[in-house]
């Protein structure tokens, strides 16, 4: 069913009787060409691109709960391509371009809002690093602007310029960055994939990988065995759990990232803002809530909840940066389990098991990568070779030393 303004009006006038379910509720078939484990943003995007771009229609997505229930449904919805390193920037810029055409591609309004992002800096060293990054962005075809303190003040007069412990010296801006309606992204990809015939199977938990003679033959699930020529794993925070079924240890730890939303407020923030002297980033949603977050809690966990010290740390950063939000109330806090990799960058690669492919290590930056991750994973699954913008995301880069470490903190996942 195609969505349009006309359709909305027609349904409104006829009592909304014509709306159909956005996806089917199929039972699994015994065998598919490709089974994607994980009905989150990346898994559903993979299904969409597999079917729409790579012509793979005999595909299933298996999800242990309800689709979109993982990190795609519990993030701060930021979309940006302001990366610095060769391995990353082409990929994220590719993702940005997919975001820019996503609504038309999906026939679903994911409310991509290119409100811009500003990363503030407070020291000369940070400025130098942002110049390097901004230049890398431009050299890769993305957009970037450097603002000095006065220009920042002009655009964001409510920031703390007069009583700041760490004065704002400027900011790196990407105007094309912004936010998207996170749930709608999952639903849009799911709806599209479903229309192309992909079976989206909810409440179907993978309990094992059937591997014989070094080849993956399919997945054991709570709904029985499902055979597959190829199995792609896109389960974010659960990467360790699923890949251990193939006997693999990963360069990944699972950590919780908390996020927060305030009560709805009339518009106050024009863009996404990232504090450079504390753990705080924020944007305002279409509904008016301030959506904000900070650092991960820092300890290995699979529990989708965090603790008070990080809540306080984030709010301290917020108050230090923009004390005008003090009387806005924090409405809800939640946590998502992040697949924190050893260099802060993701992995999209084959595995030592034939027919088993891995997509993970997104850390807390998976949302913005959703379209490109799906596209590149689909490419890998369909063609058995990496997509040109994802060639650096190899599993063996830790062994060879070709790590992609934007923050320069090394092999300690909770520092990325």
């Amino acid at each position, binding site marked *: 069913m195609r969505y349009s303004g006309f359709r909305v009006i027609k349904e*409104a006038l006829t009592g909304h009787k014509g709306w159909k379910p*956005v996806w089917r509720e199929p039972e699994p078939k015994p065998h598919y060409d490709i089974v994607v484990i994980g009905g989150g943003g990346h898994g559903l995007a993979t299904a969409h691109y597999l079917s729409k771009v790579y012509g793979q229609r005999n595909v299933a997505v298996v999800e242990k709960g309800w689709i979109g229930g993982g990190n795609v449904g519990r993030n701060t919805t930021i979309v940006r391509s302001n990366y610095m390193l060769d391995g990353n920037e082409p990929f994220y810029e590719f993702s940005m371009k997919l975001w820019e055409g996503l609504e038309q591609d999906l026939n679903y309004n994911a409310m991509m809002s290119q409100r811009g992002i500003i990363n503030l800096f407070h020291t000369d060293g940070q400025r130098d690093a942002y110049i390097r990054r901004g230049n890398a962005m431009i050299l890769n075809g993305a957009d970037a602007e450097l603002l000095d303190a006065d220009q920042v003040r002009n655009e964001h007069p409510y920031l703390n310029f007069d009583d700041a412990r760490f004065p704002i010296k400027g900011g790196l801006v990407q105007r094309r960055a912004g936010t998207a309606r996170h749930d709608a992204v999952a639903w849009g990809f799911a709806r599209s994939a479903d229309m192309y015939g992909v079976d989206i199977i909810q409440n179907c938990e993978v309990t094992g990988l059937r591997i014989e003679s070094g080849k993956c033959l399919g997945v054991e699930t709570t709904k029985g065995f499902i055979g597959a020529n190829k199995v792609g794993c896109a389960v974010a925070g659960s990467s360790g759990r699923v890949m251990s079924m193939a006997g693999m240890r990963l360069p990944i730890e699972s950590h919780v990232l908390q996020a927060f939303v305030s009560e709805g407020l009339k518009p106050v923030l024009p863009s996404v803002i990232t504090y450079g002297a504390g753990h705080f980033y924020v944007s305002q949603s279409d509904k008016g809530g301030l959506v904000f977050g900070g650092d991960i809690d820092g300890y290995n966990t699979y529990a989708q909840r965090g603790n008070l010290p990080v809540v306080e740390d984030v709010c301290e950063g917020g108050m230090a940066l923009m004390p005008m939000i003090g009387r806005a109330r924090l409405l809800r806090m939640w946590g998502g389990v992040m697949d924190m990799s050893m260099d802060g960058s993701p992995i999209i690669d084959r595995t030592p098991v034939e027919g088993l492919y891995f997509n993970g290590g997104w850390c807390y930056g998976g949302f913005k990568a959703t379209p490109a991750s799906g596209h590149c994973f689909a490419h890998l699954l369909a063609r058995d070779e990496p997509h040109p913008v994802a060639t650096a995301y190899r599993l063996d880069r830790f062994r060879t030393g070709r790590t992609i470490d934007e923050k320069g903190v090394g092999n300690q996942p909770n520092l990325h």
Partner: protein
Amino acid sequence: MTQSNRLGGGQIDRNTSLTFRFDNRSYTAHPGDTLASALLANDVRLIGRSFKYHRPRGLLTAGSEEPNGMVELRTGARKEPNTRATTIEMFDGLEARSQNRWPSLKFDALAVNDLFSNFLSAGFYYKTFMWPAAFWEKLYEPMIRRAAGLGSLSMEDDPDEYDKGFRHCDLLIIGAGPAGLMAALTAGRAGADVILADEDFALGGRLNSESFAVGDHSAPDWAAQVVAELSSMPNVRLMPRTTVIGAFDHGIYGAVERTGDHLPTLPDGKPRQILWRIYTQKALLCAGATERPIAFENNDRPGIMMASAMRTYANRFAATPSQRVAIFTNNDDGHRTAADLHTKGVKIAAVVDVREDAPGSYDYEVLKGAQVTDTKGRLGLTFVEVTLSDGSSRTLDCGALGVSGGWNPNVHLTCHQRGRPVWNDDLAAFVPGADLPVGLSVAGAANGVMTTYGALKSGAEGAAEALERKGALPDLPEAEDAPVKQKPFWYVEGCKRAWVDQQNDVTVKDVKLSYQEGFRSVEHLKRYTTLGMATDQGKTSNITGLAIMAEVAGKSIPEVGTTIFRPPYTPIPIATFAGRMKGQEFHPTRLTPSHYWAKERGAVFVEAGNWLRAQWFPLPGETHWRQSVDREVRETRASVGVCDCTTLGKIDVQGTDAAEFLNRIYANGFAKLPVGKTRYGLMLREDGMVMDDGTAARMAEDHFVVTTTTANAVSVYRHMEFVRQCLYPDMDVQLISTTEAWAQFAVAGPNARKLLQKIVDPEFDLSNEAFPFMACGNITVCGGLRARLFRISFSGELAYEIAVPSRYGDALMRRLMAEGEEFNVVPYGTEALGVMRVEKGHAAGNELNGTTTALNLGLGKMVSKKKDSIGSVLSEREALVEPDVLRLVGIKPVQPEDKITAGGHLMNADGPVDAANDQGYVTSAVYSPILNSNIGLGLVKNGAERLGEKMRLVSPLTDLTVEVELVSAHFVDPEGERLRA
């Protein structure tokens, strides 16, 4: 204006009158009122507008679960949007305004949305606004955003203070209703350390709202008497106005005490709120229950409220929404409201009870087996339409309707660690499940014990069990113990625009549409319709939504599931979580020993981590920082300069294995360093990247003083402790940080020795022979003050670092300045320091960026392969030793006046400028007043082999392209003759 809806009795102080303003009209109230009760007493029913359709809204409840009655409280920088009128304790001069309406509450232009509601059904925005593509950003989205949100922020900095605090107790009791009071009494009398917290300003919970007796007292009097006894116990801490917001791991509870919200103005130095972290052995949740509504057509008009709220307003606050009210109920508790209001003299139009077997009344009409099917009244209820059991219709004139759909236990905190509530058929409600946060138990209505006597009993038992105390419980007073009689009833058949979530405008129809479109998981329902996502987090709506979903799905409610609850229990100001850590107090400020002196000299300071360091020292007449910095560099190199370098980390390493320990943590060797000598040390992370650099001075055979960079002092110390305790637990080595203990100054320049000789006591020979480059030792200065001297140089000049106990740092700096006058001594700041280190080609923070190896920095030979050291093995991975890895080089513009930029990228002299042809980047750039040129350091592919090559430095971000030449990084004194002089 008179309080025309004020009743008799209640717990308000009628002897005192308070004045308040709502939407610029003045009213009166009494202490003990909330804003909500005062508005009702003054016959104000219309208080706000809903989120989406801008429907007129009044009060639904009398508590913190309120979805509708929200206002902007106070004015100016203290304006608080979205404040529930039901929780605002009245004070004199209170000022509040309605929100989400324009131009006025009564005439709201966006109420037009209500007319188009058919087009604005659940999720409609996902299906449209996509054409033409550009219109979304430019037209649709800005429109949506402008309409969104409820209240508005002042945009001014919050002027109030907030505190954080920490309390410990044996038993935290959450909620001071009948269960909580009885629990506190039980635990308090048993001698346990108890905290009793309640969100209300009056302890007593529901007891304050009821007319029945507890023991020989009225319910409120009984509560007051218990509170008095508890107040007298030193082991019991009462915390009224305190909301326990979350149950966190291991018995830690977050609680917010509103210490100042009920005051017209805060006393000096007092906080508005305190965020308490309460550490508990055990906790008992006595949070009571929340009455739930019934959905029927147009059930959202001002004047329609929960029956229990109506009772609270009448009994506790002596206020009624109208002099003529009706009740719509599915249970006996609704009748209690009717009886209480009748007693208070309010006319009961009728009690509409869905049950055929409803109890009757001699005082007013009870319509059994009847349902409310519609309501009328644009800005406030005027009458309700009722369908009687025989199918006929009837109209009831009334200004208010009390609705009672049964009670939901307040299980929220039991779910904060992902525990799931379980369905109880008798109550037709979710009650706490078995999987509770460790140490938490539940009593009273929160645990599904719905009678007053039951609550008292379960409170007493709950406390005793939590404390594992056996023996007799306190005597329980006699109290109401009527069984729950209700018929589950969620919504009136056939209703469409019947509100489920009143704030977010989610109707029965929306829930059904969600199901129709396949959003059938509870989470999908919530996200698709926004049910339960408003500021009340669905306290009065979630269960109704579930019930409707269950019905259309043909499942039972527990089969459909439940949404889980997340902290905080009620919304909490962001400022409260921040406490004092804002403004200048965001992080502690560390001052150097010469700070006060530098301030006198007019130094400009810069943040270096938490330190404030002098950045440069402007002289009169210098108008640009470069003038000061250039002068500091020139004069230091010409004669002598002094710089406070106390901020460098200093770690005392002692023990018989100290040298071997340093061998492990540094890539280069230390075992053979003689006593009295200092060595540069390169520290790697285990992944082979450079972690830090510094010096280690061997003060004795078993004693080293190690320095770290300012930025890494803390992480290097932690790393060294890791190596000591976790990797080499049997090494005899002891570590202690001494960064703060010593004021340390760099004295650099050709006259450095001469200057020092004037203050170092004469028995210490500073000659080049006696105290050569890299020497170190304990000395005395100025006539016997103990000091340390290190002959090390960051600037490339003849230089020393001298350290004295910190308290004398200020005096020593002044002395150096005085004694140095004859050499024109100059103090220099971090900028000049940075210029000189670039001139000398020393890698620093910009080069030690965590992605550089020793090889990258030109220090590859320092990584000893003859010993085990952290990072040595992984530093040899294939990609880290390839021929074209980045190498540190010097960068000079071909035209000396050309600017160069740190962060600029380096491209070959010819060929395309793009990412694929990137050759490296500039890490540091300064102006060298010695070379009269801009210079820089950079990392360039195979750079060591490319010295002399011309390249293009490009910085499209700052619109710069410069022709540069790669040169040796050692711009000044490459042979090191000066520092050995």
